[in-house]
C-alpha cells in the first residue's frame, strides 16, 4: 500500500514553545487514522501540517511521496479534502451557492449531481436555497462536510467532524465516512468522543505535548481506552 502522508522529524514552534516535536508518522493509502489526546496536545496543528496549511519549522511533511505527478500544487489540492476549525462557508450565500462556488474552485466534474448527492446524504435538500447565516450550527457543520468531500478527495482530513451534530446526523456521518472508507479514501480525523471514532478507525494515535505517545492498530487497542479514555496512558487518572 502506498504512503499518502509522510512526516519526518516535523517540528512546529510558536515562539519558543514547540507545538509539534520531531514527529515521525506515515499514513498509508486507505488507512483510517484517529488522532486523540487532550487539549493542546498538537492534534489540530498536526492535521494542519498534513493539509499543508502550515509549514514545519524543522523536518519534512510530504503528501503522496510515491507519486511524482502529485507534487504539483493543483493535483495535490484536488486530492485532499479538509474540514478545519472554520467552516469556509459564506453566510451571505445560500447552501447551494456555497457548494457551487467551491465546486468551481475545485473544478468538480458533474457538479450538479455531486451537489445533489451531498445535500441528500446530509439531509440538506430542504434548506438548499436558505442562506448559510440562517442555518443552525449542526446544519452548517453538515454543509461544511459536504463542501469538504464535494471533489471526492483521496485524503480526507477532519477536525472534530461530529462536533455540534445531533445523534441522527452523527449516525449519518458515520455511515457516510464508512462508505468513503470502503472506497479506499484515506481518513485522518480528530475527535474528543472516542465512542464515535471506534467503529471507523484502523489506527489510533494518542498525542500529548506535541508527540505521539501511543499508537495502536485497531486490533491492538485496549478495551479500556474506549471505556475509560486515554487518561491512564498519560498518567492523569
Amino acid at each position: 500500500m502506498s504512503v499518502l502522508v509522510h512526516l519526518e522529524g516535523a517540528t512546529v514552534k510558536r515562539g519558543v514553545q514547540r507545538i509539534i516535536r520531531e514527529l515521525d508518522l506515515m499514513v498509508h493509502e486507505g488507512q483510517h487514522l484517529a488522532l486523540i489526546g487532550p487539549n493542546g496536545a498538537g492534534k489540530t496543528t498536526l492535521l494542519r501540517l498534513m493539509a499543508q496549511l502550515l509549514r514545519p519549522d524543522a523536518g519534512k511533511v510530504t503528501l503522496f511521496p510515491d507519486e511524482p505527478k502529485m507534487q504539483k500544487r493543483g493535483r495535490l489540492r484536488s486530492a485532499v479534502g479538509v474540514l478545519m476549525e472554520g467552516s469556509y462557508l459564506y453566510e451571505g450565500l445560500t447552501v447551494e451557492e456555497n457548494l457551487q462556488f467551491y465546486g468551481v474552485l475545485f473544478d468538480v466534474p458533474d457538479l450538479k449531481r455531486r451537489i445533489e448527492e451531498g445535500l441528500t446524504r446530509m439531509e440538506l435538500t430542504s434548506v438548499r436555497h436558505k442562506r448559510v447565516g440562517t442555518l443552525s450550527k449542526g446544519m452548517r457543520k453538515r454543509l461544511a462536510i459536504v463542501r469538504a468531500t464535494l471533489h471526492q478527495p483521496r485524503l480526507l482530513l477532519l477536525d472534530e467532524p461530529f462536533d455540534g451534530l445531533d445523534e441522527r446526523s452523527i449516525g449519518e456521518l458515520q455511515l457516510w465516512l464508512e462508505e468513503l472508507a470502503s472506497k479506499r479514501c484515506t481518513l485522518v480525523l480528530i475527535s474528543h468522543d472516542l465512542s464515535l471514532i471506534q467503529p471507523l478507525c484502523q489506527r489510533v494515535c494518542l498525542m500529548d505535548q506535541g508527540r505521539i505517545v501511543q499508537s495502536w492498530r485497531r486490533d491492538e487497542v485496549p478495551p479500556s481506552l474506549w471505556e475509560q479514555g486515554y487518561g491512564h496512558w498519560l498518567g492523569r487518572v
Partner: protein
Amino acid sequence: MGFFLRSSLAIVKKDLRIQFRQKSLLLSMIVFALLIQVLLHFSFQANQAALHHVAAGLLWLPIFLSALLGIGRLMAIEEAEWNWEGMWTAPVDPGSIFFGKMLGSLLLVFLVEWVSVPLFFILFNPPAPQSLPLLIGCLLMGTWGYVSLACLFSVMAQASRLGDLLLPILLFPVSVPLVLAVVRLTQIALFPTMPGQEWVWLAVLGAYDILFTLLPILLFEYLLEV
C-alpha cells in the same frame, strides 16, 4: 489560463452576489463618497477661483476614500469563517484568488464613480472636459491601479494585528506616483489651458497598473501563507 480566469470570475460572482444581497457595503461606499463631495463643495464654495487648481483632487478624493472603506470590508468577508484558507485549500492558482478579489473590488468602485463623478460636475461646475476619452481612460486606469494596490495592502493588513488601521498607512505612501499621475491627467483632461504631457503620465499610470497587478498575482501564494 482558462481555469485561472474561471476561478477568478467565480470569486467576483461570489463577492458581488453577497454585496448586492446585503447592499450595505455598496450603499455605504456611495453615501460616503457623496458626503465627502458635498463637504468639499461647501469648503470651496466661497473660492471658485481656486477650483482650477484643486478640481482633480476634488474628483479623486471621494473615490480614493470610499474605495479604502469598501475594499477593507470586502477583504474582511474572507476572515469570518477562515475563507482565505478555504480558497487556499482549492487547486487554484493563488494569483487567481487575488485577481478575483481585485476585479470584484474594482467593479464596486466603478459603481461608486458612476454616481460620484457626475455629482462632481454638478456641484463644482467645471468646464466641459477638453478630452472626454482621456478623462475616462484616466478614471479607468487610475481606479485599476489604486484598487489593485489597496487589495494587496488590505490582505497584508488583515494578516497583521492592526488590521484595517494599517491599510491607509501602507497604501497612501506607495500610491503617491499613481495619485500624481491621475491628478495631472485629470487636470489636462479638464482644463484646456493646462500644458499637455498626457503621454508621459499615461505611461506612468500604465506601468504602475501593470506592476501592481502582476506583482500581487505572482506573490499572493506567499502572502496567503503569512
